[in-house]
């Protein structure tokens, strides 16, 4: 009986927090747009810097779009726990009795919906700019859909560790970029394989494995990091 009650309140807390975070994000719409605009600007800089040759652009398109997605994610990550940390809400979450892991997971989900999903939805436009073959667009979208949650999940650990610092954002990129290396490699390899007409499902499988692993482990690490930062 009590068990059922507590599990109900767990999912209740999860959805309540998710709803609250999404609501807060949509009340601050301009802030919501910054990472997206950043993504567009970064990708548009590449043709300007490298030259408009369609073949070269198509060749580097997966890498450029993915690196831009990494940068945009890191830019948006700082907001994941920042405002809750500064006004003391995070401490209230800790003493609320709900596991901090669950709270982190809810906040990570909200972050992905706000910062990761727009990247996935925008990628047809980016692919168009970068002259990516239409056949590989679907694969690019799939890799982004599977990979950007991992970026949010791993990034949450870095944010948890740097949250108590005033200028944590600069350190954050140093902490998380090395951890993003495998995702970048596998995702771009999938798109390149698709462009070359090679099989690519194994890469998507690896990305899914990465997603499952990080969903199960990263919230615990993020919660531990937050506890250290709040101590």
């Amino acid at each position, binding site marked *: 009986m009590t068990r059922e009650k507590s599990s109900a309140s767990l999912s209740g807390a999860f959805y309540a927090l998710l709803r609250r975070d999404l609501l807060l994000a949509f009340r601050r719409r301009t802030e919501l747009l910054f990472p997206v605009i950043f993504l567009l600007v970064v990708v548009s800089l590449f043709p300007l810097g490298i030259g408009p040759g369609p073949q070269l652009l198509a060749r580097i398109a997966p890498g450029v779009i993915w690196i831009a997605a990494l940068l945009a994610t890191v830019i948006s990550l700082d907001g994941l726990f920042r405002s809750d940390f500064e006004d003391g809400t995070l401490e209230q979450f800790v003493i609320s009795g709900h596991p901090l892991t669950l709270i982190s997971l809810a906040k990570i989900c909200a972050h992905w919906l706000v910062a990761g999903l727009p990247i996935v939805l925008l990628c047809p436009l980016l692919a168009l700019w970068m002259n990516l073959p239409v056949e590989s667009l679907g694969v690019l979208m799939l890799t982004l859909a599977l990979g950007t949650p991992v970026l949010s999940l791993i990034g949450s650990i870095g944010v948890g560790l740097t949250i108590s*610092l005033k200028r944590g954002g600069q350190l954050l990129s*140093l*902490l998380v970029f*090395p*951890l993003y*290396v495998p995702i970048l490699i596998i995702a771009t390899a999938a798109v390149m394989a698709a462009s070359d007409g090679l099989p690519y499902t194994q890469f998507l499988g690896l990305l899914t494995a990465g997603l499952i692993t990080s969903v199960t482990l990263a919230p615990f690490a993020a919660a*531990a990091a937050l506890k250290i*930062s709040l*101590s």
Partner: protein
Amino acid sequence: MTTETAIQNKPRKNALVMFIHKMGSPPWFYNFSGKLVPWLWAVFCSLAAWALYLGLFKAPADYLQGESFRIMYIHVPSAWMSMMIYTSMAIMGFIALVWRIRIVEVLAMSSAPVGAAFTFVALASGSLWGRPTWGTYWVWDARLTSELVLLFLYLGVIGLYNAIDEPRKAARAACLLAIVGAVNLPIIHYSVKWWNTLHQGSSISVTGGSNIDPSMLWPLLIMALAVKFYYGANLLTRARVRLLEQDKRKAWVRKVIGEDKS
């Protein structure tokens, strides 16, 4: 508290437990490591001198690479150490987070600069070795790349530790980062390895062949052993200084410094 009294009641029965227990106390650790450090330095110096003598004067020149292969005696032990120190740092970080032993926190954090230095030496010597053998200073070879990522991981740990003012909180945060990095390190290593074969094909093999003549192999093994003593000596020296700094207002440090003056 109960375990402490239990240990104190029967100190002779488990000497090892007693020893580990005592090592958790900063003054005891400081004194013990102070006795150990000169020996570690001495063993390191003699082993390294022996290995360098064998490697630089006794070992014959490589038939393919000439004299330049002798960089191996610095490069390979450094690369091994860079991996080993990260592993030991992560294990110590785990112990520090679970049992909250301050000495282990200090040791884990003192490992990071040593490991970063070894990683840098491995990268720099590898780059210098690459010039005569591969014709270029830098190749996006799988090992070089994962070594570079390892350096970034070390820099992240050091950066995080230095950014947080309170030493214990900083150590705990950096220990957690070290553990996360250690979980990721194999994944990074294999993904980079596999990325390299995918993108440019492995035209270069770093080791060449596994058949090394004993006269070339022995100096390498002795050097590999010597740098472990270097790690121990450097680690303990750093940890001692860090402990003095953290405990500078405590009685035992005053006593130690007073003794040094007289």
